[in-house]
């Protein structure tokens, strides 16, 4: 009797492997290939068209001497930290409110999630009107009789980025709420019962038991929010177009403008490489903690 031969591992699940080839190719060419191409060209003095005249770190030196870029980075930091903290807090808070077995939950959930269906451009324009002193919130409050009331964040260099932040949170916290709500619903009801029998107050149950149990949900929310922060562009363009002056510039806008307005590819590539480096600086230690830590625990 001949022994059955072990089938060739390469040919197992052949259909699935063939079907995956286009996506694998896309990922390799678009993500890896284009990233490398961008990084390489950031060391050249490409202007309108990509060239390979290498100039070392010249583009980066120029970048970090440009005031507009420095303001962009500062804005991104403020916007990023605030929107991360506020989205998660507001989203979680709304989710816990919705989780109290209230009536009309579906309706309220839809209303809160609704802004997420709008594009950033529409959101930006809407909030530009709402925050406009001549026909927005300021006008309404003044017409109610409070004549000295002033609320014009989009026209004040010092706080313009917070005006953009309001719109971003209004748009994005609904999604975070839905994700958090799904996480809360995934908590076994008996955990709540056990905590009640133990006499643990509700807020303590949330902080010490439920939130630690929802760690994967928080990670999901974190990834989604972070991706949104780094690429913020259209919201700024629609709301302020970087103004007043250059007070609300963001890195993504800097990249696009260098590329298409100033025809300075080298500068744009240097800026986008810096954005990539920033993301990696945040991501690598996190990934190490999350995945490296798990392997050690097992």
């Amino acid at each position, binding site marked *: 009797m001949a022994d059955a031969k072990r089938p060739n591992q390469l040919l197992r699940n052949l259909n699935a492997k063939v079907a995956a080839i286009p996506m694998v190719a896309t990922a390799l060419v678009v993500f890896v290939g284009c990233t490398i191409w961008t990084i390489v060209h950031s060391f050249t003095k490409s202007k309108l068209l990509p060239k390979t005249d290498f100039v070392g770190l010249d583009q980066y030196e120029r970048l970090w001497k440009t005031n507009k870029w420095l303001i962009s980075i500062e804005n991104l930091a403020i916007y990023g930290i605030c929107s991360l903290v506020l989205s998660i807090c507001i989203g979680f808070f709304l989710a816990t409110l919705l989780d109290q077995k209230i009536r009309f939950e579906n309706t309220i959930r839809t209303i809160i999630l609704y802004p997420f269906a709008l594009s950033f451009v529409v959101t930006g324009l809407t909030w530009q009107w709402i925050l406009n002193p001549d026909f927005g919130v300021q006008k309404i409050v003044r017409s109610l009789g409070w004549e000295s009331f002033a609320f014009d964040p989009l026209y004040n260099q010092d706080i313009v980025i917070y005006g953009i932040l309001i719109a971003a949170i209004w748009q994005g916290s609904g999604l975070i709420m839905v994700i958090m709500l799904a996480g809360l619903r995934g908590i076994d009801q008996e955990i709540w019962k056990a905590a009640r029998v133990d006499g643990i107050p509700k807020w*303590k149950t949330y902080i010490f038991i439920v939130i630690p149990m929802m760690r994967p949900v928080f990670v999901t929310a974190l990834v989604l929010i972070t991706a949104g922060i780094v690429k913020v562009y259209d919201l700024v363009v629609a709301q302020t177009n970087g103004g007043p002056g250059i007070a609300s510039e963001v890195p993504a806008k800097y990249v696009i403008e260098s590329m298409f307005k100033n025809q300075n590819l080298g500068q744009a590539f240097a800026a986008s490489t810096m954005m990539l480096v920033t993301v990696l600086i945040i991501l690598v230690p996190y990934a190490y903690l999350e995945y490296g830590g798990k392997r050690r625990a097992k």
Partner: protein
Amino acid sequence: MTSTSSVSIKHLDLSFGAVEVLKDLNLEIANGEFLVLLGASGCGKSTLLNCIAGLLDVTGGQIHIKGENVTWAEPSERGIGMVFQSYALYPQMSVEGNLSFGLKNAKLPKDEIKKRVQRAAEVLQMEDLLKRKPAALSGGQRQRVAIGRALVRDVDVFLFDEPLSNLDAKLRADLRVEIKRLHQQLHNTMIYVTHDQVEAMTLADRIAIMKDGLIQQLASPSEIYNKPANKYVADFIGSPSMNFFLGAVNTDGAPTFETAGQTIPLTGYEFVSSPAAGNAWMGIRPEHIVVGEAAEASDFKIDTSVEIVEPMGSDTVVWCEVMGERIRIRIDGQSSVEPGDTLRIGFDAARLSLFEKTTESRI
């Protein structure tokens, strides 16, 4: 009665909207008693337990624990500890953390917490597990931690909500004995919800069989087994379940039961009240039907042919048709019976259960 009763439930009603789950339920549970609430799913047994725990607000009636009216008290103020089916451990905390979290929250002194945790760990033999997280424990160990969490609360009444249902058969048997040992050691009042009749029979001092939010029978396991109060209880308890014949009780002269042309003498059957004629169900448990020589000595005997044989090792279940009904007979596992064999079976009147046909209650 009230002075010795640990938990007393008076005229309890609970409805969710138009659905009445519990209806005018009364229950007195004595100090140190092990009461099992038994019933099929949806009978209201878990709901009743949640009401006792205070996790559900009642619609009407009162609940007293240790003589105190706790109908509207918070669960943590009722002097109860509860064990859940899914264990409901706090997954991010160590076993020690799980045991002590509630106590820390109640601001108990540190050495008192330590003493209680130590004692619970000793009682449940899990001292070496204290530093582990629930994820690193087996199902049986997790449930022991959950029991420990109820234990450290130092309460009079323990509530168990199907605590063994998530375990495999062998662990379930082991932990069942452990719970029984715990009860003998602590003498606490325990109320235990289950749908498993073996758990109910082995653990309980008294069993309350529930159906549709009503207690069908509240009695000791042996009484429930030997003298079920109605046909539902008779059918629910016992595995394989009781055989039933529809017929009529005849009281002309000595009482008899007539079905499918056969007359079964009822001399020796303990009627609840004086025997009355009328249509009725006759029930006989598979293990109370005897074969061979014992059948000859029985009050009633009949020949039948074997249809199906289910050997189970310790005993064998034989299916055959008798008086127009397909019945189960439980015989010794070593007897050799083949399908097609003619079998002489018999049973005694004292072993029967008779139920009125329409009300299905015991007569």
